[in-house]
């Protein structure tokens, strides 16, 4: 028997041993059922652990940006703070507003959380480490992500609160707008990789080079659109505390609020992990085991998101929609055309990569130039109006 106990293969080895042990005294279908359920439990556990880590990380990064200490009371460096938060959430009173639509109010956190957790099924955590290697991986990710819109709408409507309702309207406007550029960028990646499966996309990057090097323009577009999809600052108009207090979860308390909180950070983790898969070569990397590379890259991306949150001011909702429809969608369409033509016309992969890179730089310069010109025209028009 070959040695399966390498660090690279650690998690799969544990699974194999467990499966063999169960197969010793259980029928085959029960073993399959137990192992599938176990994968679901492990994914849920990863989700919750990731949220504990991320909530601590968010506070520490925010504290660093604000020149403060952040949580530092419980445990070394305040490391036990997330557990204190979790216990606080669990023992808080659950309040349902008198006028709320109880059915929608109670259902909303469930939809939001389930939609967020389901995205984990197609994340390639390492070599041969994806819960379900669907041949529609990316499509599944996008489809499940769209479930959360329904959850937000339900929360906004069920709460019977004007701020929650405004947030629900914003959710529809913003999330549907940014689904388009996100989809266009994903199609560019899929065209280069020639597959919708997340594992195949990673393997294609082993062959052609990481896609953010090939397509920097598309990557920047995806980064901005994805942060709007994940409701991260500067696009967190749905929960803008200074305008609509907290948006859709304003009336929620205790564990139901915790579920929204959970979903938000699960989305952050899954979105960053998907960005790593699409543009940063997923689990590819030298020396270290593949799953460790995947985690390292994901946390670097998450750190960048937190950094942006603490550095940039929030933009207005009309600006968010304007940028989405007037800049990102056209830029995405141009990028899509460029990627398609270059990929089909140039057979040699190295030359195609170089041409794609040059075209993408051209795309970035072109979009920046057009945006700058539009801004200057607006300013000149404003000056003209002032003079008159």
């Amino acid at each position: 028997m070959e040695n399966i106990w390498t660090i690279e293969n650690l998690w799969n080895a544990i699974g194999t041993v467990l499966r063999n042990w169960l197969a010793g005294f259980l029928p085959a279908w029960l073993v399959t059922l137990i192992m599938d359920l176990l994968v679901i439990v492990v994914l849920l556990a990863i989700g919750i652990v990731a949220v504990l880590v991320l909530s601590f990380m968010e506070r520490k990064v925010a504290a660093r940006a604000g020149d403060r200490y952040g949580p530092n009371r419980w445990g070394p460096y305040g490391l036990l703070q997330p557990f204190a938060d979790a216990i606080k959430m669990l023992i808080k009173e659950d309040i349902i507003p008198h006028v709320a639509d109880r059915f929608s109010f109670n259902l909303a956190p469930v939809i939001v959380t389930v939609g967020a957790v389901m995205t984990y099924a197609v994340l390639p955590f390492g070599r041969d480490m994806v819960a379900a290697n669907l041949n529609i991986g990316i499509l599944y990710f996008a489809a499940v992500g769209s479930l959360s819109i329904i959850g937000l709408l339900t929360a906004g409507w069920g709460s019977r609160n004007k701020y929650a309702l405004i947030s629900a309207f914003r959710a529809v406007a913003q999330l549907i707008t940014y689904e388009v550029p996100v989809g266009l960028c994903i199609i560019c990646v899929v065209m280069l990789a020639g597959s919708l499966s997340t594992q195949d996309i990673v393997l294609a990057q082993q062959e052609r080079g990481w896609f953010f090097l090939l397509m920097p323009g598309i990557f920047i577009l995806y980064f901005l659109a994805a942060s709007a999809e994940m409701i991260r600052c500067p696009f967190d108009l749905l929960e803008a505390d200074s305008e609509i207090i907290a948006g859709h979860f304003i009336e929620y308390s205790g564990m139901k609020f915790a579920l929204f909180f959970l979903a938000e950070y699960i989305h952050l983790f899954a979105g960053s992990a998907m960005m790593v898969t699409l543009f940063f070569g997923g689990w590819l990397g030298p020396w270290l085991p593949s799953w460790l590379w995947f985690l390292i890259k994901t946390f670097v991306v998450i750190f960048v998101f937190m950094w942006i949150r603490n550095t940039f001011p929030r933009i207005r909702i009309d600006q968010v929609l304007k940028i989405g429809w007037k800049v990102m969608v056209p830029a995405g369409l141009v990028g899509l055309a460029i990627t398609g033509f270059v990929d089909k016309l140039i057979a040699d992969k190295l030359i195609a990569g170089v041409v794609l890179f040059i075209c993408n730089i051209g795309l970035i310069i072109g979009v920046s130039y057009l945006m700058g010109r539009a801004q200057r025209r607006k300013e000149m028009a404003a000056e003209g109006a002032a003079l008159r």
Partner: protein
Amino acid sequence: MAQAIFIILSLITLGCALVVVTNRNLFHSALYLAFVFVGVAGLYFMLQAEFFAGIQVLIYVGAILTLIIFAIMLSRDLMNPNVRGFNRQWWAAAIVAGLLFVVLAVVLWRAPWPAAPVGEPSADFIAELGQALVSPAYVLPFEVVSILLLAALVGSILIARER
């Protein structure tokens, strides 16, 4: 095992569909409709048509249902139990719905349902589907649908444009 999952999925789908049409609260109906769509997506998964399952959720739940809910939220007097569920044109709606039911029933009745499994889908199913869409057999309807969508897009912009 597959049979059991199929029965559970069908029961959930049909049960939710029943609630959609019997529930008095429109917003709750829309939420149950989401479960129906997801249940149908699950049935597609069982038929090994993963691509259609993904598209089903993306289009029906992500886009169409969102618009339905949006329309419901923007309509007046929705949560008021004193408002009657019917208006004066209920008989016209009943006739149209009845006709649609007859057409669907006839189509379903006449369709030659395959009694035996048709076979496993090929591994490269999505690529074949994409190529079929631009093959001579389907390219005309495909392009006509594209132009229809473009026309709808231009039309909506025209309506929304400020003058």
